[in-house]
């Protein structure tokens, strides 16, 4: 596979994986808002060293 084809292929796969992830996140958020049960915690503001 040439470098260009490889790059196009990995970009295509990654874009697909990104959209699947966003769709699943949206779907899970919807389930959480309707059914609930998941533990969602707000962003903690403590330092990264914690």
């Amino acid at each position, binding site marked *: 596979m040439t470098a260009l084809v*490889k790059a196009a292929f990995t970009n295509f*796969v*990654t874009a697909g994986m*990104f959209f699947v992830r966003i769709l*699943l996140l949206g779907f899970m958020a919807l389930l*959480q808002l309707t059914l609930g049960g998941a533990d969602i*915690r*707000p962003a903690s503001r403590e330092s990264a060293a914690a």
Partner: protein
Amino acid sequence: MAWPPYHLMRRDYLAEAEKKYAKLERLYHVGARNAWDGKKVLSELLAKHGGIRLDAHKKRALAEIFSTILWGELAAWSISADLALQLEDTEAKMAATSQVFDEARHFYVMRDYLLALDVEIPPLDGYTHTVLTELLETERLVDKLLGMQLIVESVAVTLFRSVAQAGVEPVLSELMPYFERDEARHVGLGVLYLPKLLAKLGPIEAARLKMKQLKIVTLIGWGTHLKKRHFETLGMDNNDGFRRGTRLQREVLAGMRSPEGADPRGVLVGDPRLDVINDWAIDLFFPRMGAKIPAWQRTVINLVDELSRVGDRALRMAA
């Protein structure tokens, strides 16, 4: 640019550079002062703990996680050497040169540790392979600096801390802080030098850079799903790791802001506007270890884990 760069000896240039980049030069001197003898540290730790004693299944899990680290260190070694070559300001060049020595040490220490672990090291997964080869092959300095110094090094710092805290194996737990201290300095190179490069970005280039970060973050997320069962075997909580990682990214971004508080152009990671999405994504995809989760969440997570294997196979085809 003509060589040699005679301006490096001009007193007005030196005074200006000293004012702007004294902290960068300090990274080099701190690196030289704190350089540790990898052979000595590892052999002393192995002698102290009587070698590595770990169940076979935990050894395999460790090998899965640390194959990423091993090849990541090799990539970081080459990338920091590229940076040392390409960076023009002497102080940044010194900091990158110091990093080359650190990464070489990290690679041989990790290699020797894994040899002592005496387990077969699996090939690199498709996600990590894609991230590392992209950073190795790109000729764009800003991509290399942002991708390696701010994202990959931050992930490394977070992972080293998680491994040490999980107490997976005593030699490793005592070895990780040595790595972590060095990696924190490497993040410092990006924080201190990137704003200069980012200030020159136009809107199209800034958007392209954000897409690149989105790509790397997406690959890291899916790669973590792929390795999830190995993290669990070792008692490492991904929820905790991701939260620590996002806090670190926020601090990194804060360090890159101008004195007036303006965000640097083209940086996506650490953006506080994404905090809410990040929180939901972390808690929904990576619930806390041992937490009771509803059936719908477990079902979707199992599907995500399956999909991560599909993506891995697809990306390996291009490897």
